[in-house]
């Protein structure tokens, strides 16, 4: 496990510098003068400051601002704990419930009066008005697209951080799997995962639906979280957490006493699907190859993404059957880290769900899990 952490500290200085350089270069290329981040992954990437984890989406509001000409960063934080020296006290702005107070500090940042292009990573119906007031000369630009492109390819230190998160997720997943027994419920298996995760020093999950009994009468169905597990049930585990901001995720399927004989054929199908998916995970290949892999294997893709990027959260690629054209337009590239999902289902048997964190390299895909799900 990791060294014990007893202080709230900013992200590593070199990592911060490298990430910011990428952001500033992308702003330069897009002609963006000021970028306003409301989404925590983007704010973390820019500022390198751990802030309180809160469940669910948040309405867009300025949480972190970076200005291109000076590289200066403003952050919403009432205190300086976890804030690096390169964000001075005068650039910290306290929590506010008053829009006028937000407007006041926003309009005072360097270059606000002359900025021509201001990008935000989210929008509210009121955001246009806020931007017009604080940046009277500026056009609004899409900061989410800019940041998603910047964060898409990982720095080596980011891949190391994701590896660490995967290792802790595996540890907590093992505890949840060890708790699997007759009468357990999805909710209680989730409880076991959460406990082991926090005992390992990480208190921020990326999903709170860690285990569910796969449905036998419908594709991608799941039983109630309070349904007791019975022998023969295929129980899916979806483990995800964030250590030092970076997401590690993996998924497995288990049954009490091992997979039942009725699921053997399904398991074989899973292995075949997985091989096709991994084959599609090549540097330069279109991300839609992952959807093609499902088609070729005859399996119906789940309605959730078959691949999502791993990083600080909300990472590209985002590959799902509902967005075929988007998938075809995205390339898988060396330096991407993806959580790759293989799911197969059979009437009367249930589903087998497996998710692997994979780094795409020039030499092919590299699995981050210490015990990959694919049988050898």
């Amino acid at each position, binding site marked *: 496990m990791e060294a014990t952490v007893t202080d709230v500290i900013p992200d590593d200085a070199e990592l911060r510098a490298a990430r910011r350089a990428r952001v500033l270069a992308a702003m330069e290329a897009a002609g963006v003068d000021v970028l306003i981040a409301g989404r925590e992954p983007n704010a973390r990437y820019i500022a390198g400051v751990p802030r*309180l984890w809160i469940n669910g989406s948040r309405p867009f509001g300025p949480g972190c601002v970076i200005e291109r000409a000076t590289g200066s960063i403003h952050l919403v934080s009432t205190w300086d704990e976890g804030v690096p020296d390169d964000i001075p006290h005068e650039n910290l702005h306290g929590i506010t419930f*008053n829009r006028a107070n937000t407007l006041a500090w926003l309009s005072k940042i360097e270059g606000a009066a002359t900025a021509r292009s201001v990008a935000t990573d989210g929008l509210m119906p009121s955001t246009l008005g806020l931007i017009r007031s604080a940046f009277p000369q500026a056009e609004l630009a899409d900061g989410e697209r800019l940041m998603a492109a910047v964060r898409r390819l990982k720095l080596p230190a980011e891949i190391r951080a994701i590896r660490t998160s995967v290792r802790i997720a595996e540890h907590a997943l093992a505890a949840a799997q060890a708790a699997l027994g007759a009468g357990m419920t999805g909710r209680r298996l989730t409880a076991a995962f959460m406990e082991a995760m926090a005992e390992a020093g990480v208190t921020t*999950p990326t999903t709170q639906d860690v285990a569910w009994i796969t449905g036998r009468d419908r594709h991608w169905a799941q039983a109630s979280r309070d349904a007791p597990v019975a022998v023969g049930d295929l129980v899916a585990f979806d483990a995800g957490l964030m250590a030092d901001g970076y997401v590690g995720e993996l998924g497995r399927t288990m049954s009490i006493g091992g997979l039942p004989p009725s699921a053997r054929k399904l398991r074989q199908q899973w292995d075949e699907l997985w091989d096709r998916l991994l084959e599609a995970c090549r540097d330069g290949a279109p991300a839609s190859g992952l959807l093609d892999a499902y088609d070729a294997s005859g399996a119906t893709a789940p309605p959730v993404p078959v691949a999502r990027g791993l990083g600080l959260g909300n990472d590209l690629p985002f590959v799902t059957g509902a967005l075929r054209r988007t998938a075809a337009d995205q390339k898988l590239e060396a330096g991407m880290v993806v959580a790759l999902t293989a799911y197969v289902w059979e009437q009367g048997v249930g589903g087998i769900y497996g998710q692997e964190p994979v780094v795409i390299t020039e030499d092919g895909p590299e699995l981050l899990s210490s015990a990959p799900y694919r049988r050898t």
Partner: protein
Amino acid sequence: MTAGLMSAAVGLVPDKPDLARMRRDRTGRIRETMRAQGLDAVVLLGNTNVVYATGAIWPLSDASRTYFEQPVAVVLADDELPHLFSPNRADPRMQADLPDDHLHGPAHLDFDEGVEAFLPRLYEITGDKAAIAIDEWTHALRRADVLVGATGAPVDAGHIISRAKLIKTPDELACLRAGLRITEEGIREVQSRLAPGVRQTDLTAVFLRTIFDAGADANILDPIWQVMPDRIADGPWTTTGDLALPLLSTERELEAGDVLWLDLGISYEGVHSDFGRTWIVGREPSAVQREQFQRWRAVLDAALGVTRAGARNSDLTAAATQANGGKKPWLPHFYLGHGLGIDSAEMPFVGSDIGEEFDASYVLEAGMVLVLEPVIWDDGQCGYRSEEVVLITEDGWEPLTDYPYDPF
């Protein structure tokens, strides 16, 4: 031991929530406002707004899945049932007992292709001439130049939910009370393990384990067990010159005599709980600490003494300030009190930086829920903070929590 606030049975809250009735009441409240404003439909993206409109529960957790996989709700003025667009439609909690023709596949509104696919489905439901408001906007929707008015921005639907959720339905109160009970079960277990040498993250482990076992749907914030300094100057620098709170928990080992300020919350059926207490590690409170607690009680009692439907926020802030010898007994970056429901801090905000003018004009109503969280601080001798959740009634308030103030 000093007993918790809840001494009498609460007669206003049903024992068990009726979830179908809860959704009917909530969409009824939304639709009432829509009709008053001439709106035919509202589109909702914000996670908790979708929960409010549909009753769907999904333990979507953090940013890694939040924005790209955001469920979307559509409420029509002339339809009792909401529509739900979600990738998780096979999850029974996500279906929320909606009929098949009101359940749709995912709407990925962060993506241009997602918007292109969503719009025809939306107009099929609403008709393409409908007056539509939306709570959150995306760049992809903006690029498509849809759902916008003359200003170039959409009509904001957020305020409709803000207004609807102010007054709690009886079943929301039942969910809130159940959620508070689950939270307290977790807290009780944690408190029994509190000792020198235990790490903050160990407390979190016990809390998370217990709340999920006890029926929580989700934890809603990284649990806070903040070790308080004796003096403000011994803590981090702040923009206000006052205390920093909440600071993140780490693997720090607790020591005998540490004063902990707690802040936690969970979700039960989409309704959030909130919990705050002051604990002392491995020791009984000193005379000074007991006196601080007594002052905190006096401030709380003073604020509750004027809490009733028809009271203004400023009545509460004035009473609390007077009981604290003229000094505001709350943190300047927060408030004396806040609402609680589908969000862990929602209107009404009492004593916030929205300002004194707002507090003087804001009138509390029966059916609102208020979390009061006064702070007593003696610089050099630390202080005391707890939270109490109350329901505002016509002639006063009803307690919704019942957890003791041990070790005080």
